[in-house]
């Protein structure tokens, strides 16, 4: 068993003696004997690092990981979790122990590294969202959405929340769960041909309107119509953005969003079985005092040297307690630093390149699928890099069958689409990592299993 505790027997004895104690048990004298654990934990004994590595290799072999031809499943699944390129340089820099083993930058004098990286992250997110203020991370896309809705409700005083069904169905689930505490009234607004039917909304007030851009089923929604609905209802417009799309599409900020949130796993974080990911949240200047989470600001030190520090701290739970704008404390800083590195790697040309490469791959695949008469597209709305297919067999069955062919063949729409025409359609996503050869073989494989 490895021992991560340095104390030798002599150390222990010497220290106990200094404290006037005879045993470590006496350290716990303040704990009533009746409730102390007799007999120790019911866990196995510790194993060596090598033993655990062998064990993990065995357990890991029972997972089908994504990869490129031969090395893993070729991934056509997305839905907020994308198979993007992560270069060695991102791994090397984000893995530096100074970033990995630091705490929240409470002492700016010795935390300029993390602070400046977060300042850069905030700048990137501000540009991507088209809004001037970005916090320095939230848990993931769903958490960012929840925070945005809380912010909007607090700002408008109205707890009516209109959520497009084009929002990630699991994020809608999470929103519904937390609404049980806050008491927000969440109303789902249906999709017609992949696009939100805002016209179906009645009433004349609301706290916020939430739309996806592009939405979960791949369609590029009109922000203008969401904006005018929000205006009519006195609501804030919250846009859930696929941040990769910003390489090609107008930014939600210019489209009238008050708050932009989303999942930024695409920027340097591995698929990770769903976490840790990176929620981002940007907002208009006037909303900054309601911003959830940490915010880094530029300032100077005693000598006038440029420095960074967490700022507007009075919003936060440790100071404002029950009246804080959010309860968030630990966030996803390391992923935000990772994103800053990855966005630095991509740069101006790279973000456009991965955006257009995804769009081209989707466009190419769509043309190939269009050649198969038995397969239909579930929507005709303009898309960015995702689309949905209606197949002769259920989407979930298709996915199971294609695992054996070496593909993660997308996501079967179910949860959140029960009873709609999208149920059991197959949502496909494309990134710059998909090649023509992979797509050609994939289309053939889909035909083989689904068209019988």
């Amino acid at each position, binding site marked *: 068993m*490895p021992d991560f505790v340095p104390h030798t027997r002599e150390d222990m004895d010497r220290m106990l003696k200094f404290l006037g104690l005879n045993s470590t048990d006496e350290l716990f004298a303040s704990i009533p004997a009746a409730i102390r654990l007799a007999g120790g934990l019911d866990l196995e004994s510790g194993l060596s690092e090598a033993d655990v590595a062998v064990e993990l290799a065995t357990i890991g072999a*029972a997972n089908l990981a994504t990869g490129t031809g031969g090395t893993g499943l070729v991934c056509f699944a997305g839905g907020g979790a994308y198979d993007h390129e992560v270069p060695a340089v991102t791994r090397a820099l984000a893995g530096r*122990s100074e*970033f990995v083993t630091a705490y929240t930058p409470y002492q700016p004098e010795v935390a300029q590294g993390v602070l400046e990286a977060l300042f850069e992250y905030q700048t990137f997110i501000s540009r991507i969202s088209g809004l001037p203020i970005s916090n320095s991370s939230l848990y993931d896309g769903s958490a960012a959405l929840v925070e945005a809705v809380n912010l909007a409700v607090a700002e408008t005083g109205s707890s009516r929340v209109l959520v497009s069904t084009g929002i990630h169905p699991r994020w809608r689930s999470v929103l519904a769960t937390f609404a049980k505490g806050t008491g927000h009234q969440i109303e789902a607004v249906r999709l017609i041909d992949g696009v939100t039917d805002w016209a179906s909304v009645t009433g004349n007030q609301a706290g916020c309107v939430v739309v996806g851009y592009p939405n979960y089923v791949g369609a590029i929604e009109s922000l203008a119509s969401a904006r005018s609905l929000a205006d009519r209802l006195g609501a804030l417009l919250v846009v859930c953005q696929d941040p990769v799309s910003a390489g090609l599409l107008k930014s939600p900020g210019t489209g009238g969003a008050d708050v932009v949130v989303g999942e930024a796993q695409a920027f340097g974080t591995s698929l990770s*079985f769903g976490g840790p990911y990176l929620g981002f949240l940007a907002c208009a200047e006037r909303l900054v005092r309601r911003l959830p989470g940490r915010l880094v600001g530029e300032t100077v*030190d005693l000598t006038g040297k440029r420095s960074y520090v967490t700022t507007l701290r009075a919003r936060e739970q440790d100071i404002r307690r029950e009246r804080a704008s959010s309860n968030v404390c630990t966030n996803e800083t390391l992923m935000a630093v990772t994103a800053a590195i990855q966005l630095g790697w991509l740069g101006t040309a790279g*973000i456009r*390149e991965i955006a257009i490469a995804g769009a081209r791959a989707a466009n190419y695949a769509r043309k190939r699928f269009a050649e198969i008469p038995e397969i239909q597209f579930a929507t005709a709305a303009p898309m960015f890099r995702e689309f949905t297919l209606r197949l002769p067999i259920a989407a979930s069955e298709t996915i199971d069958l294609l695992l054996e062919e070496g593909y993660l063949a997308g996501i079967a729409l179910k949860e959140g689409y029960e009873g709609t025409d999208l149920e059991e359609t197959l949502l496909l996503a494309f990134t710059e990592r998909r090649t023509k050869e992979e797509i050609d073989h994939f289309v053939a494989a889909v035909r083989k299993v689904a068209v019988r």
Partner: protein
Amino acid sequence: MTQPILRPGAGRASSAPLVGNESEPTLFEFSSPGRRAFSLRTTAIPALRADELIPAEHLRPDALELAEVSERDLVGHFTRLAHRQYSVDLGAYPLGSCTMKYNPKSCDEAAALRSFASVHPTTPVHAVQGWLQVLVELEEALCKITGMAAATLQPAAGAAGELTGLLLMRAYHEARGDNRTRVIIPDSAHGTNPASVTLGGYEVTTVGSDGRGFVNVDQLKGALGPDVAGIMLTNPNTLGLFEEDIVEVARLVHEVGGLLYYDGANLNPILGVVRPGDMGFDIVHMNLHKTFATPHGGGGPGAGPVAVSPRLADYLPGPRPVRDRSGSVGFSLELPPHSIGRVHSYYGNALVLLRAWTYIRLNGADGLRRVADMAVLNANWLRERLRGVYDFPYDRPVMHECVISVSTLKRTTGMRALDVAKRLLEFGFHSPTVYFPLIVDEALMIEPTETESPETIAALADALIDIAREAEREHAQGTQLTSSHAPTSTPVQRVDEARAARRLVSTYDARH
């Protein structure tokens, strides 16, 4: 030293922190049009123009400008930033309530394994049996450690765990048609507790501490009533003291039909010693990123699983990984009958959970108990060395951390807790947590953790003593306290926090 005479443009080059204390320019200042670091796979997909792919009205008219730097400048920049960042790997980091222990490097490698890290979260259940095994085994281990019946691994951090716990409390009461409105919190509680209570739709009732530093049982009795949904307690509390009346407190809360919530953010001192379940708690959240080997990453990620007693198990978030009962696969997903729903898009912060699994496997029952023993020994040993130099507001043996006060020194020399913290940086240690818990004046909350050696603890104590003596000496001499303007040898000196808030510049674009 003589300052090198750097021209303005020289900031764009490679000033290294090792050999100078210049500011590191932002990535944007390194940017030069046309420079690039990225390269992508060769795909052979037809290179259609953007407007052949997407209707023109959706396309952005301009380029999205990020930064344009070479891989070399990217590496130089972030390496220099890293050299401006204190971290556990560099030295002791005794931030109270943060458990900044050393985390085994093998846990980093576990989290980097492709067979875990490259798995898409929507991969069908039968293709992620390895992952589900880890999650189920971790849940089982956490239940054994806390003495609870079942757990959810979904919450992404402690605060998310708290809110999840409060929603479980709410679901439990609502299921019995019981509409309760208040949650009790001691005044020593961590800030996330009251913030979570509000988000859980409850009102906060604060109870004070008694002279021993424990929940004031008399005040508690007064605060209890049929409208109390529950109480949130940290035990050991944020003074580092074990709530000796816990059994009585549990009895009182349960008597009025309330539930007991255990803030287990700092589980270090109770590992194998005592279990929240045995204290009478119904709900426990844990900060795996403190106790179980996830380095803090500069502020995250974390994982805040919530374990519950049998009567709350049916309300847990779901779907959740379980040992399959059908027998066709080893593990499957199950939605608890009265689940409150999802609190995370997928399974929680999975790679953090994998680290925790690994850490528990490495340590085993004995190793975890040794963590508790030495964490508590270190804290008490450190504290005892400081006796007579700093104030001991609640003078009792502590658990994993101790809270001392600079009150007397402030009165006699003018030195504040903040000054001690800042001065300590120059001795090669990170500062303790300052001004928390709120009930201690000029508080320094020190958590040495079990991974620091006695030599390190002794040096830390010596440094704290030296700082006190220095202030007394300087005060006696009538000179300005060194600590009042420390640190001066760090990459930057004390920063102007007021200015940051007054003139908010939170992006490079706002600078101009």
